[in-house]
């Protein structure tokens, strides 16, 4: 298990990195934390002609919080974001979600932006981004653009990123105090990719659900929003057990599911219902996660 030969570049500036990306396009891979890329190289599931290591680019290491948003640079590690989020109540979903990303060693090197760029449908960070309505900041020699996360994930390992673009940051808009968040994932072993997981958010105003986001991972070919279930919830009372049961039923029945060799479609669907029921039950009372 040795990688196929590749050229290695470690630029000091974003400009240099983008120039390399422009030159190599599809043949290049960005190396940030390497927690998915390195095993894929070793297994020869990926054989890029060149690696562009962005770890020397200081600007990508920034983690910045303003009143409006939390901006996470491409080289910010899961562990750094987790530490920050765990200290602030409004990022409870970020903290709950990142705690379940693999093991500490992987969180110390792996990055949320890398996970989003890879778009593994079983990973936590893409679903987290969808649940929080994040924006993805893409840069290329052609300039920078910001894309809504809802338009970013297209399928398994497939995103709206162009070959000459890289993710420089993801920004999470700060949720208002009227949002409640919940998270749960189901895995055979601690730290594994989830068989199914749910990032959930409810905006509750005067005891009524104004907005709902139920985002599943490990279930479909990308982070999946349970639109029907969300629609059922909107306008209802989060403490209404029957409402929650109907939402869980809808999530189970209507979510788009891809089975795997080991876990069938029916099981994944079942888990979607279980997760919806469990997480919403916890969101019945203010607090959450």
């Amino acid at each position, binding site marked *: *298990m040795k990688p*196929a030969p590749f050229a290695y570049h470690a630029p000091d500036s974003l400009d240099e990195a983008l120039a390399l990306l422009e030159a190599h396009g599809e043949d290049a891979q960005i190396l940030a934390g390497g927690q998915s890329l390195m095993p894929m190289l070793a297994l020869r599931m990926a054989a890029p002609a060149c690696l562009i290591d962005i770890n020397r680019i200081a600007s990508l290491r920034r983690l910045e919080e303003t009143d409006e948003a939390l901006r996470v640079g491409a080289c910010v590690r899961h562990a750094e974001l987790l530490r920050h989020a765990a200290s602030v109540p409004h990022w409870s979903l970020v903290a709950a979600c990142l705690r379940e990303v693999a093991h500490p060693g992987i969180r110390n090197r792996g990055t949320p932006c890398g996970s989003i760029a890879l778009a593994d449908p079983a990973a936590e960070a893409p679903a987290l981004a969808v649940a929080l309505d994040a924006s993805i900041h893409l840069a290329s020699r052609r300039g920078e653009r910001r894309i809504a996360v809802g338009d970013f994930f297209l399928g398994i390992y497939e995103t709206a990123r162009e070959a000459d673009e890289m993710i420089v940051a993801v920004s999470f808009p700060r949720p208002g105090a009227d949002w409640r968040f919940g998270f749960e994932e189901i895995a055979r*072993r601690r*730290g*594994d990719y989830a068989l199914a997981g749910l990032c959930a958010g409810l905006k509750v105003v005067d005891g009524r659900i104004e907005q709902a986001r139920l985002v599943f991972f490990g279930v479909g070919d990308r982070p999946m929003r349970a639109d029907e279930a969300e629609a059922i919830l909107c306008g209802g009372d989060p403490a209404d057990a029957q409402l929650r049961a109907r939402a869980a039923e809808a999530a189970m029945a209507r979510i788009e599911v891809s*089975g795997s*060799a*080991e876990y069938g479609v029916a099981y994944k669907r079942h*888990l979607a219902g*279980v997760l919806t029921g469990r997480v919403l039950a916890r969101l019945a009372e203010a607090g959450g996660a």
Partner: protein
Amino acid sequence: MTAPDPRPGEIGRPRPRAESRRLLAGRGRYASDENRPGQLHACFLRSPHAHAAIHRIDREAALAHPGVAAVLLWEDLASVCKPWRTVSGAFPGLASPTQYPLASGRVAWQGEPVALVLAHSRAVAEDAAELVAVDYEPLPAQADYRSALEPDAVLAHPAMKDNIAWTMDVAAGDVDAAFASAALVVEDEIVFTRHTGVPLEPRTVLAAPDAASGELTVRISHQMPHQLQLHLAEFLDMPMSAVKVSTGDVGGGFGIKMHVYPDEIAICAAARLLGRPVKFVADRIESMIADVHAREHVVRARMAVDGEGMITAFDIRDLHGLGAYSVYPRSSTMETVMALRPIGAAYRYGAWRAHADVILQNKAVTGQYRSVGHPIATTVTERLVDRAARALGRDPLAFRRANYMRPQDMPVTNPAGLRLLDLSHEACLDRLVELIDYDALKAEIEAENANGRLLGLGFAAFVEMTASGTEAYGRAGVKVAAVDTVTLMLEPDGSLKAAASVCEIGQGISQGLRQIIAEGVGLSPDRISLSLGDTATSPHGGGAWASRGAAIGGEAAWGAARRLREEILAAAAALLQCAPDTLDIADGAIVDAAGRERMGLRELAETVYFRGYELPQGVQPQLSVAHSWRRERDAAVPTNGIQASLVEIDAETGLVRCLKHWVVEDCGRIVNPLLVDEQIRGGVAQGIGAALFEACRYDGEGQFVTGTLADYLLPMAGEMPDVVVAHVETPYSGSVIGAKGAGEAGTCGAGAAVLNAINDALARRGASISETPATPELVLRALGRLAPEAEP
């Protein structure tokens, strides 16, 4: 021979392993740490097909790749290496075709080595392997062993008339009458999914030929270097004296590293052919696909119980998926026998019948893996026992106790042909009841279940046949050493230099043997250097298999120690002009009857080695001794114990968590309780893995789908419960020390206890499962929470 002093001494002392400090500091010397100038690195091109004819192999492009030294096929190796075929007198009629180090015209399992690419680095060898063009003609693959016996079944080997490798039929007592007159018959069909051992250190070999001496030096991660030396000499047509095999540190074996592997033989043959050192380190994917797998069985078993609630008979049918070949030299069918004969062994019963069909498949070869066969026997037995207890409304432990083989019933050869003696079932059960605080635990489980949780408690009594003696393979004509030898020498500074034929593979036997020698001679174990695992320095013997280290190697060590002690005392007595029997050795010094020091061991050794003229005429001290030990009775040493497991099922997701696990076992005299406890715990981890997680899965085409550790789930620290270990010590009556095998007992019973615990929980909802691993989908289906589905 004098038995060890029953007072607290070195034998039985909980000493930490001397090697731990070095290994934990990263100073281990594993095979992959070894390098030779000019060595070539190997990459095997392995078959992507489960079954295919090979019409042509074009290696030109690979040979032209910069850095590549050779691309070898079987036709190249054939000039220096013979193929092999597994035959055994123990398995008459065994059908297993000839095996080659590299494929000869046909591949019969996915992962079979086809070509060997040798280059100046592994990476270059892997690059070049991609350039080897093989013209395969895919053939139908025999991958579903349940249909393998049908008349039109796909053949794993087209030259054979069917897929049957071997059939076993054994019966004793009147089984039909027992079932006809039974008050209760319980039965089950239990599916065991293939799994494997997954040692942390993969198989690794560095073979270096010496042009000057003609010798071949092989450094390999292996459990039995002497046996490999013998086979290499045979296959490569060399005298054994010219083949030197050593292991260094070994990072786990579990039975995986005791077989003849085509890839390892190909490396040694390539080194001979090219006259250059060749190194191969299996990566994790090739370990998963090409290490021996084990335990693919469907066992249908019935148990008869009479009106008194006594077990009277077992009737068993087994379908055993063997893989493409029967492993060399021991034969994979050893697992069949050991999966069946121990069924019922903890209990008194009168009649026993077993039929097994052992099936060849286009899948990886299976072989002996920790606690060979026994976990299957234990699971089958204990499932039936639990079913019977439940049907009779009896407490599961009370039912076991009533049926146990009691001390007064032994020694006995039971109907399945097992020689049973020195077992302590009731004592172990008593200890377990105390350990788990049975009544309180039951009450706690009831209370939690009343609160909506789903907990279950399961038990598994077990008998394990350990430390196989000389009959196991000897009568079958298979050259496997079951005698072990220890050599022992007094060094001039009063320390000891020892070598043994048993092997250290991480289990700690090196520490155990030093403690035995220390007590036998009368000095501290840290005064003993012990070399193991090197055919150039240690005597021929068994290595590490069947938990033999303490039970057989320990006897050899004790014998060598006592001989050396006698020699030392005789020399000392001559110098001190007293009778030897008035002297003793304590703490490394020669003492008199009152315990007063008369002479240090160093002083004695210096006199003998440097000032021999001071010795009286006619005194020739033999300060180098060798002692061999073969057991003269009992084909194997039976051990016993009982395990309990507490599990929780998440009835919504089907996930099972093992909350706590207990083991009470009797491995006879314990040489070092720390070593034994950790062997038990490690074994339990592998049993829990089998019950809940581990599965080597193939699709219908024989494609292996669990080739990474993301797919093949091992229990990790997060999945392991606390494992509480306790002992009953019933020394084996046929040896001086009385130790029995301890290394496999954890694996023997853990999976059965976990499955019984799951079923104890499921029974509360009127459900049960009879398959391992207990995947969440299986559990949910049993609970009726998930409809059966046809889709994958």
